[in-house]
């Protein structure tokens, strides 16, 4: 008798637990589907830009990199000179992993003729942030198998987390609402991915000590190698560009010197303007110490174009 009562308690408990998980599962599925629908319905903003870069762009010239790509490379200047279409894929704070994933996704459906990879000081440094940033690619994880190994670098449990339909859109509720609003179209207007900066730098020159950071993240170095190899294998003309900084630098950035050496190994042009005197100490060309303003962007584009022509 007692055993029977115990069993019925246990059964009721299991039924209630299943009911709880069923509600969670169904809510997750419905909300996840809605988020997916509206995520891909966006027509402006950062997220739309990533979707466009992965699924739509057919441009002949693609520019990859962080904000130092997005704010420093004006596609219109390159289009005019090379008479080819150009799109700037650059995205604020996004590391090499992200760009390698985008390159792989692009190569699945179209072959660009020229790729410019904007390289930053400290790109190979050991920082967890670069891995965390891969969450930007979660909405594409399920239907772009080629990017999965890269997104999995985020952590060992990504595959399990992806069982949730909401998880790929974690923290994206408000950006999705904004991205579907008319307001977003004016706020996030870009020129083929390029976001011009109009300010002029103020204040004293920043001093950066590059002698401190010597340890490199081998996964990031290998991803850079893979990016170079992939372009070479696809016969794409790749130019790695390190735009200028307006800083007082102590020592040389170890990431840049390493990237340069690797580019040489693969016979790929590496244009290093990080300490180019035609930029440094000219505040009128900079919006802040990492980013050129519109005037500086024009000078950079013309300098890069000349070097590309010379390297042919």
């Amino acid at each position, binding site marked *: 008798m007692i055993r029977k009562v*115990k069993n019925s*308690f*246990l059964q*009721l*408990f299991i039924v*209630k637990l299943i*009911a*709880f998980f069923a*509600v*969670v599962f169904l*809510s*997750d599925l419905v*909300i996840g589907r809605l988020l997916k629908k509206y995520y891909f319905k966006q027509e402006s903003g950062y997220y739309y830009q990533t979707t466009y870069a992965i699924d739509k762009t057919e441009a002949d010239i693609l520019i990859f990199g962080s904000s130092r790509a997005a704010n420093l490379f004006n596609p219109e200047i390159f289009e005019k000179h090379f008479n080819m279409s150009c799109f700037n894929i650059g995205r604020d704070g996004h590391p090499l992993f992200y760009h390698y994933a985008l390159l792989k996704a692009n190569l699945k459906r179209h072959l660009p003729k020229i790729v410019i990879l904007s390289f930053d000081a400290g790109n190979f440094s050991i920082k*967890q*942030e670069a*891995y*965390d940033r891969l*969450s930007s690619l979660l909405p594409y994880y399920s239907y772009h198998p080629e990017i999965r190994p890269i997104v999995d670098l*985020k952590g060992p449990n990504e595959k399990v*987390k992806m069982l*949730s339909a*909401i*998880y790929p*859109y*974690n*923290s994206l*509720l*408000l*950006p999705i609402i*904004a991205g579907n609003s008319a307001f977003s179209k004016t706020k996030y207007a870009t020129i083929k991915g390029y976001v011009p900066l109009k300010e002029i730098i103020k204040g004293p020159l920043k001093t950066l000590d590059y002698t401190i950071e010597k340890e490199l993240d081998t996964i990031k170095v290998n991803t850079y190698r893979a990016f170079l190899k992939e372009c070479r294998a696809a016969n794409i003309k790749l130019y790695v560009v390190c735009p200028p900084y307006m800083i007082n630098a102590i020592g040389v950035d170890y990431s840049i010197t390493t990237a340069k050496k690797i580019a040489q190994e693969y016979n790929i042009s590496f244009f290093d303007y990080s300490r180019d005197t035609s930029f440094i100490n000219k505040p009128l060309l900079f919006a802040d110490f990492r980013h050129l303003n519109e005037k500086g962007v024009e000078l950079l584009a013309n300098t890069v174009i000349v070097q590309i022509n010379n390297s042919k």
Partner: protein
Amino acid sequence: MVFVPVFILILGFTIVVDYFAGIFIENSKGTRRKLFLVYSLVANIGILCFFKYYNFINTNFSFILHGFGLSNPIPYLSILLPIGLSFHTFQAMSYTIEVYRGNQKTERHFGIYALYVMFYPQLVAGPIERPQNLLHQFREKFQFDSNRVYEGLKIMIWGLFKKLVIADRLGIYVNAAYNNVEQQNGMTLMLATIFFSFQVYCDFSGYSEIAIGAAKVMGFDLMTNFKRPIFAKSTGEFWKRWHISLSTWFKDYLYFPLGGSRVSVFRIYINLMVVFLISGLWHGANWTYIIWGGINGFYLVFAMMTKKYADKFNAFTRINKFPRLLIFFQIGITFLLITFSRVFFRAKSVEDAFIVIKKMATFKGSVFNAGSALMLYSFFAISFLLMVESKKEFYTGSFSLSHHNNFWVRNSYYSFLVILIILLGVFDGGQFIYFQF
């Protein structure tokens, strides 16, 4: 703060020392009894001091020697702080002290004693349990109790919500501001400090609730560690609601042995300051924590010194005629005082803390907008917390979603929380702040 497998030996060492110390204390009388207690305390405090304070003490020693134009011959060591060391050494010490006091019988079963120190839900971040509450539970026979499992899971879900949706979200803004205090204006630092107050509460109480909930699911009751400290009406009341397991530890094993409140008023003030300064040092080997402890000790001393004036002030302003307004006022003042002290708790150095205070005092600048989404999520998180905690604090008998009679209402509420965790939780980076202690 790291997990290194070999560090389990440290835990093993303290377990063996305290296990035998307990037996020897119970079997001895007079000074021998005291001697075994001292051995146990020296072993525990010695380990804690070596791993946590060696380099801090050495740095300060170097500073003093430098003042006399001398160099320090003692080398710095590259020591990693074992995860949860401060928690399990305090829990182990409470066992030998209670055995010495005769409040707890010696645990002769080595496995059960080891479990008391290593009980995994609360091993790394508390609550710091007492032997009277926990040890006997390991000897009880358990029967499956579905209500207990539900309760445990509910507590865990709320703890996870506090940690992932509130604490880690606010932490993004706080880190951005406090990692670069020179670049921030006063208003930004003020907002970051207020956010930090909520962050540290949700982080630590969230973790405690996960531990309490996990233990409950398995059939064990751990002590309540937080009782909505946001609504404390005085700093004294705050410490009765905040990190209760640590506050009572210090009260029972330090404040009372120093004489507690049975000594002269001046000695009470000294005792309070000593307890809070040591409590500050327990939180971290940095002067910022010691100052933080000192400020909180001062609050209590000041409140005691001015108690009669405060009553007169309330009567003079007639605010005591409006009890609700008075409570609101008291809660607000307490929150601001505690939040102010946390500038030292969060700042990387004493210099940084003073920069923050100086900048905050100017009330200048506009608040740094770290992205509309982050700001809105942060305000939503705080509002949700205040709503739930206000309900629990002030409207206990009224309508409740979490304890509704209808299963489907309760079920939907907790499903909603889980969905919010997946939708708005921060899953990257962030670690439990209190792990470092």
